[in-house]
């Protein structure tokens, strides 16, 4: 099955080369696409140098639009499955290949890499690979709020609702390339997929601390983030189900 790994990147020139190398090493069979979300630095150039195909959005559109671009590319170029991970180096590519295995084996349509679920159970910690992921307090609060509401909305247990490490098959590509909120990509997409009757599964993964830069979440922003997320979930619950995605 042809596989695409895409990386949404916004001003990540410092880490994008490394992430591409990591993916090449651990998922050698996959084609690589970097979705450059209107970066003003040399992200696109770095990615091309590293041998990735680059889709450059002319201006910054937000993570949701960038991810959708990746799904669109995968769908139109006829890839059987695709996966994406963050460009900041938080997501080890070795874990991405594990997500892809689930999709290739057709055990799920959409697989989410969760940094919270069953940590340490299935994952063998590889020594010397950097620190394990330690979330900040505001992120932990936000995560538990979303976890609760998303569980209520979908009647399925999710632990890592905002995870940016996912793998998907063509059903998901078709769904996400048409319906993807630019404002609240992660949460709404989960709800959407579950409501469409797709099999969504979480797989425990190991994540690393951010390699560079700081998280964009300040307390005020977190509150706004949570509020927006709740609106999205509420509206999503009343949205009509679209035509069943073709199986």
């Amino acid at each position, binding site marked *: 099955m042809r596989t695409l790994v895409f990386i949404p990147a916004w001003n990540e020139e410092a880490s994008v080369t490394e992430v591409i190398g990591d993916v090449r090493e651990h998922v050698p069979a996959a084609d690589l696409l970097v979705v*450059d979300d209107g970066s003003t630095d040399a992200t696109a150039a770095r990615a091309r140098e590293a041998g990735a195909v*680059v889709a450059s*959005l002319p201006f910054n*559109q937000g993570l949701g*639009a960038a991810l*959708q*671009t990746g799904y669109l*590319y995968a769908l139109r170029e006829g890839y059987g499955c695709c996966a994406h991970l963050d460009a900041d180096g938080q997501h080890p590519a070795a874990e991405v290949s594990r997500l892809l295995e689930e999709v290739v084996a057709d055990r799920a349509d959409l697989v989410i890499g969760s940094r919270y679920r069953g940590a340490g159970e299935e994952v063998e910690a590889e020594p010397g690979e950097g620190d394990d992921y330690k979330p900040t307090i505001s992120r932990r609060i936000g995560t538990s709020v979303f976890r609760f509401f998303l569980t209520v909305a979908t009647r399925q247990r999710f632990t890592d609702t905002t995870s940016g490490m996912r793998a998907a098959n063509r059903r998901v590509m078709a769904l996400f390339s048409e319906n993807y909120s*630019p404002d609240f990509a992660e949460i709404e997409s989960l709800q959407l997929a579950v409501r469409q009757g797709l099999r969504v599964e979480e797989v425990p993964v190991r994540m690393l601390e951010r390699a560079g830069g700081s998280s964009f979440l300040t307390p005020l922003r977190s509150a706004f983030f949570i509020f927006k997320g709740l609106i999205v979930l509420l509206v999503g619950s009343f949205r009509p189900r679209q035509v069943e995605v073709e199986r």
Partner: protein
Amino acid sequence: MIASVGSAGLLLFAAGEEAKVHLTSQTRIVAAILAIAFMAMILELIRRNRLQERYSVVWFVAGLGMLAGAAFPGLLTIVADLMGVRDTNVALFSIVLLLLLGLALNFSVIMSRQAAQITRLAQERALEQAREQADGEQNGDRPGRSEGQSSRSS
């Protein structure tokens, strides 16, 4: 002093309750002129291609409403009665406020639609670019291939 001002205000208020229409002929003329000037401005904007026809309709309706209100003050009284508002001024302000609220919402809807269109446009452009790069690399892999050959094969 304060008490006398207060009582004067109270008297005015009472007077206002009895007389239903406050519009003097002078305010009516001013309102009519403003409405006509407003509609002329809209026509001018359309003529200069600064405003699209489809977005002008709503403003024309607003201008005509203003004109109608100035020409037939009785209309306002009828509307106020229908709303159950005793003071026509209150009725006028609430109608205008609601209209503006509706317009602002309408703009947000249009804006959202256009934002979605712009996003899709940007995505299409990015995808085209990526496809070109991918195709180019594929062709580059095969030795002895010139530009002419690759364009013929595609």
